[in-house]
Structures are given as C-alpha cells and as structure tokens.
C-alpha cells in the first residue's frame, strides 16, 4: 500500500503541489487527472524519487520511505513509464525491453542473448507487440516504441507501476489491448497509477480517480460515482463550456481548393476532393492512413506523380510551403508543433511574424520591430496566449499556448485556406476547448476554409459537418452531418458509428 501524506513541493515562485494526500491500494488502477501544470508530473516524480518533497512523506506498507533517486524507487519495485519515448534505436527490441536488467543475463562474463530474447518475447506478447524481438527498434513506429517501454516496466515485476500518458502514440486497437492488460495486472495485486488526458480511457480502466488542480488535490473518488462531465468540472473548476456548435455551411458555391486525381506511386491512387469557402472539412483516419501525407502533397512538401490541385478554380503550381503561403495563402499547422511548427528557442514575436516580415518593412526595407511586436501582441490578445511579453521564447510556453502561436502565424499572414493537423495533441482540456472554438470561429465568422486532420473522434465530429474517412492512402468514405443550412441532424453516436463502419 502506497500512501502519500501532506506532500508539498515548491519550485522558485511556484507551488507545484500543496498538501496533497492520496492512498494507492494494491490491485487498483488509480487515475490521476488534471490540466497541464496541475502537478501530475511533479507527483509522479516524487513517488519515483526524482524529486524530493519539501514537506510531507511517502509511505510504503505503513513505513515512511526516503527516495533520493529513481534507482531507490526501482529497488522498491516502483516503476515509471514516462511520457517521453526512451529507447535505444540501434538496439533490438529484446535489448530495449531488458535494458535495465541485462546484468541478470550474464553467464561467465557473457550475455546470454538466447535467454534474453526468449524472456523479452514473453513480455512483447503481453503488450501485443508484434515486431520480432531481434529487430532493431529504429524501424518501429512510435506506438511500437511505446509498447516496448511498457514491456520494460512489466518485466521488472513492478509492485507500483506509474504510467504517464502511455497511450499518446497508440492506435485504438493497441490502446484497448493496453487497458485490458492493465486490468489483468491489477488482478495480480499491482498498483497502477494511470495519468492521462484521455478521460474515455480513464473511465474505461480506472477504479478510482484523483483530480489535481493548480497543485491541490480536488478529490479522490471511485470512478463509478463520477461522470465525464463531473471530472472535467473538477479539473477546470467551472462548468465545461459546451460549444455552440450549430450550423456551418457545407459545399456552398464553387470550391476554394480542389484536388483532382492526386496520385503518388506506391501510395495514393486517383484521390479527389473539394473544399469550399467557410467550411471545416474533416480528414479522419488512423495515423499513417494518408491524411497528413495528402496534406504534405497539397502544401508542396512532398511530390505528387499525377493529378492537379485547383485553387479558386485555377490550376495551382505548388512546389514548396513558400509557394503555398505566398502564392495561394494556404497555411499549414503541423501536427508536430515542437519539431516542425515552431522555433522553440525564438521569441513569440518571431514565431508569429515569420510569415509576414515582408509586410512589416519600412520604405528602406528594414523590418519595423515595433510593428513586429505589435502584431504579436495583437494575436496574443486575440488568441489569449498567456505569456509575459512577445519577447518570451516559445519553448517556455505551455502546449496550448504554443499551439495558439503556431496557428497565429497563419492568421497574421491572412491565409484563407488552413490545413490544421491534430491541433489538440498534448494540449490541456481548457486550451483544447478554446482551440476548438477558435477553429470554429475562423470558419463560421471569418469565412476561412479549413481542412481539419484529426484522430480525435469527438473533435472531428463536433467541428466538421463533412468528414472524409482515410484508410490505406485512399478516401474510403464521406460522412455528412448537415441538414438545413448545415446544422447537424444526427448525434455524436450515430456519426461516429458511421465513420467506424468505413474503417472496419
């Protein structure tokens, strides 16, 4: 039985945890939820000995324990599956699974690879990892790497298993399998501490849930007593704003962007679709189904072998993002904002004004710094980007605020067509709702034409009135939910079921 008692932890000028006490029982899946910055990670790190608390104590089986490093936690069979994927790319699956216990397989100064591979295969099977254990990890997908990390923790016979967003890279099927696995290992008396943004998963797997907000424990409750809405309300401390998502025009007038017969050898074959003014067109499908890959072709980042793209009825020649932006005012919000969307080391103003420097020049061609700052301030205010000043580096912002910055640069450039790829990955619930509202307003109020790429079903069903379903680099179905004036005529369940049918 793991207990934490009156834990307080402060960092310079911020109290990350304030008098938090939680009991974790053996054989339970205990979910910890809260917005970004609520203190979940700090709590995890204290349980794992990565941080030491300023006050309070951690008790294991009634005795106070003092952890000074992660190794101390490991010695007590407390294991962490962290959010970041930590694998050694050139080593095999088996090596990566057994990474922290290779010394157990020493026989006469040599490592017994056959035994490692056999043992690793057992754990790989447990997490439903299909890749052969002798394969190097580098060629695997993010989801498979995540499964390796989980297998690594399982193979340590953990008594307490902390999982920090373990499903962020997993597909639906792998997620279901993982949840099943968690149910099984809790039956063996393991305590699973499950941290997730995805409340559906929490509701599906957790026995009890503890909600943190601004470093304080709001409450610990058996999951059976709570609804999703109640959890959200505990997390954000107010009623969850339900979107006023009403009518949105669908295919009105001539198309703004039209793809005709796009082909790419080995991938796309004759793919066509049209996007109209003021609509949000959903691209739904699993990661790797061709949604992002098609977007890459549209913005000129990837070559197409056949077919044409028409913008405003004219044939468009887009060879690069520069063409896309400067010739056709088409913007792209990357699914990977940290690596592809933002210059994290640069200030907010650079990241917003990067698309409009031409416009901000004086008559001698110098960029007017005041105008740059003003542009940034303007969008910081409009999009409620929480930062001290436009000079603050983007890397120091929260995920939600970073995402707002990466959208702002296209708004600054007056882009009429926006391709928005997975806008709410790694964004907390409050910011997620805000971003949904923002995307909605861009289409509804400002008449922008938006392609929304998402694997988040509620997100796409709420926002898009027309959804293209992708599978194996083809559009396998079009789901419409527009009655009179584009207002939704069917409920979430019905629409999501239809999408599911196309994917099956």
């Amino acid at each position: 039985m793991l207990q934490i008692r009156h834990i307080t932890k402060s960092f310079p000028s911020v109290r990350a945890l304030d008098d938090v006490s939680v009991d974790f029982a053996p054989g339970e899946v205990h979910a910890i939820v809260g917005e970004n910055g609520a203190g979940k990670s700090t709590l995890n790190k204290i349980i794992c000995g990565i941080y030491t608390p300023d006050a309070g104590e951690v008790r294991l089986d009634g005795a106070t324990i003092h952890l000074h490093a992660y190794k101390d936690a490991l010695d007590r069979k407390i294991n962490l599956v962290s959010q970041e994927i930590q694998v050694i790319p050139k080593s095999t699956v088996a090596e990566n699974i057994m990474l922290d216990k290779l010394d157990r397989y020493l026989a006469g100064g040599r490592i017994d690879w056959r035994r490692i591979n056999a043992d690793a295969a057992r754990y790989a099977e447990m997490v439903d990892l299909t890749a052969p254990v002798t394969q190097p990890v580098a060629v695997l997908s993010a989801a498979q790497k995540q499964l390796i990390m989980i297998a690594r923790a399982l193979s340590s016979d953990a008594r307490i298993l902390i999982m920090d967003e373990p499903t962020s890279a997993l597909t639906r099927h792998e997620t279901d399998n993982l949840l099943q696995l968690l149910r099984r290992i809790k039956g063996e008396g393991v305590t699973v501490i499950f941290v997730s943004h995805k409340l559906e998963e929490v509701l599906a797997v957790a026995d009890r849930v503890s909600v943190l907000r601004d470093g304080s424990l709001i409450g610990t409750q058996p999951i059976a007593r709570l609804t999703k809405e109640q959890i959200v309300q505990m997390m954000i401390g107010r009623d969850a704003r339900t979107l006023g998502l009403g009518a949105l025009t669908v295919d009105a007038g001539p198309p703004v962007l039209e793809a005709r017969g796009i082909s790419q050898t080995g991938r796309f074959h004759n793919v066509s679709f049209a996007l109209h003014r003021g609509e949000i067109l959903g691209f739904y499908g699993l990661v790797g189904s061709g949604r992002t890959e098609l977007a890459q072709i549209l913005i000129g980042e990837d070559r197409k072998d056949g077919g044409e793209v028409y913008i405003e009825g004219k044939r468009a020649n887009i060879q690069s993002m520069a063409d896309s932006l400067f010739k056709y005012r088409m913007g792209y919000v990357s699914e990977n904002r940290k690596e592809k969307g933002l210059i994290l080391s640069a200030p907010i103003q650079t990241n917003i004004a990067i698309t409009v420097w031409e416009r901000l020049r004086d008559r001698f061609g110098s960029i007017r710094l005041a105008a740059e700052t003003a542009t940034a301030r303007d969008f910081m205010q409009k999009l409620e980007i929480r930062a001290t000043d436009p000079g603050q580096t983007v890397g120091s912002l929260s995920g939600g605020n970073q995402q707002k910055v990466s959208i702002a640069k296209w708004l600054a450039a007056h882009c009429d067509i926006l391709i928005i790829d997975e806008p709410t990955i790694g964004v907390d619930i409050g910011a997620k709702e805000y971003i949904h509202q923002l995307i909605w307003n861009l289409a509804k109020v400002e008449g922008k034409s938006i392609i929304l790429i998402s694997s988040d079903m509620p997100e796409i069903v709420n926002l898009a009135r027309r959804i293209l379903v992708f599978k194996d680099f083809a559009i396998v179905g079009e789901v419409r939910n527009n009655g009179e004036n584009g207002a939704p005529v069917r409920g979430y369940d019905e629409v999501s079921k239809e999408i599911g049918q196309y994917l099956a």
Partner: protein
Amino acid sequence: MTQREVKLLARQTNQRGGVGSALRGILRRSDTSVVIATLILFILFSFSNSSFLTPFNLFNMSRTASLYVMVALGQAIVIVIGHMNLSLGAIGGLTVVVAGWCMDTMGWSPWVAAPLALLIGTLCGMFNGFIIVKSRLNSFIVTLASLFIFTGLVQGISQGFPYSNIPKEFTMMGRNDLMGVPFLFIFVVIVLIVLGYVFKYRIVGRRLLATGGNLEAARLSGIRTDNIILLAHTLSGVFAATAGLLWVSRMGSAQPSTGTDWLIVSFAVAIIGGTALNGGEFSALGILASAIMLTLIKNGLIMLNVNVYFEQTFLGVIVLLAVSVESIRMALSNRSRRSQVKSTA
C-alpha cells in the same frame, strides 16, 4: 487580506519582477560573459604592464583582432544556420595564393587581383553550399572533403612558395591608419555593424536565424531554406576570401600557409562570441569582444614569455571554458524564465 496588504503584495511582486527581468535580460544575452571578461582582461593588462597601453601595441593588437573577426565571421555565418565550414582556412589560403599569383607572377594591378581572388573564394563557398543542398549530406562531411580539395589547389598552384612582390597600394589597407586607428579595424567594425543590422532588421538575416533555430519549422513557415543554406555558405566563402586578402595586405606577402591555423581561431572566436553552436543566434558585439579577448590573451602570453608554440593549447582550453560558461548561463536563464512563466500562468 486587507486592501492595503494586497497593494503591498502587488508592489513587492512588481519590484521583484523589475529586478528579475533586468537580470533575465542580461542573462538572456549570449554575449554578456565575453564582454565582461574582455573588459576585465583589458583593465588587468593595463595596470600590470606598462608596455600594454602603448600606441604601438594597441595598433598591432587591434589589427590582429580585426583579422580574427573576419576569420570568425566566415565560421559564424554558417554556425548561425547550424552548419560548419571546415574548409574555411583552405578557402582563405586559395584566395591568398590567387591574389599573390595575379600580382606577383602576372604583375596585374591589385584592382584586378583582389576582385578575382574574392570571386574565387565566393565560388568555393558556393560550391560547399551547392553540394550540401543537393546531396543532403551534412556540412561536416562536405566541407571536410572540400578542405582537401582546396588545400590541394593551394599547394598545387603555389608549389609551396610565397609571393612576395605585392604592390604598396595593396598593403595600405592592412598597414595604414586613420588618426591612429588601423584601416583594418575600421573596416571590420563597419562590417560588424552592417551584420548586426542585417540580423536584426533585414528579412534575410531573420531567415538565416530562423533556419538555424529550426530548419523544418522555418521551411514549413514559408522560408526557402535551401536558398538560405546556399547563401550562408557563399557568405562564408566571401568572408574567408576577405580575410585572406586582408591577411596579405597586412603581411605584405602572400604565404600559401595562410589559413592553416584558422579553424581553431574561427570556432574559438565565434563560439566565445556567443554564436550558439546549434544555430539561431548571432552577436556582432560578442564576436568583436571575443576577438579582442583572444588577442589580449595571446599578447599576454608573449609578455609572460610563455612559449608561443603552446598557443593552440590555450585556445582549446579557452573554448572549453567558454562553452561551459555558456551552458551555465543557459541553465540560469532557463530557470529564471521558467519560474516566471509558472508564476504568471
């Protein structure tokens, strides 16, 4: 809490924010440490040695520092985009040999020799950039290969012999002065001011920084990053060639060995001067300060009668120190920034 207490608390937080933000501003600057260190060294030398502050010594030191600046710029311009140019010295050497050959062997006017040599250097840099962009190989490998190509050309053309017949009008730049200030020094200060302005106010400068900050993000923000990479390497060639010509102008002869020791100097000055090694940052002031600092140290070693053959060892140690100071600065700056973000969130 009473209203008075609230006001008091607000004032306290404000005050802390004021001092904090000033400190943060200084910490955030990449050139702070080198400017301070240079000033301290300068003051130290002024007091400890009577021959330090003589016009002759200052004249010579400022000329050396000027050449260091020029060499460092050739490296800094590619470090800014996260690349490097190992062939920098060889480009400089090739420029020197071409200039020498034109003026000495062919007897041409400096007005023909200098532009021609500059053109050759520029083409060398462009060659590096072109290969990097087209082959998608990294700059280390490409410029390592071109280092050998250019070095071979230097040795092949010169056969190892210096060109000593350099016209007087050509050496004016490297040897004469305006009211005691060497032309060389005036020249590099102007170049630095122009670069400082370009990086802050011109689109091309901002695009160089953006590309260095995050290549993918820059490209996906509509920057033609291939052009930027080509430009940076071409400019690296221009700076290396300019440094080569100034070197000849100062020495009064064209030595084929010129440039062989530029690699360590170029990295040392650029890095100590606050050019972030992984790109995206440039400081004109920092480069000037660090060039002066290295000159001071060299000067100091001579005054202390340290064997000059050990110079590179000292340079290496100083680079290590500078990088360590830099990482400490980053850590401090990050910490103070992070705590501030949390307190406002």
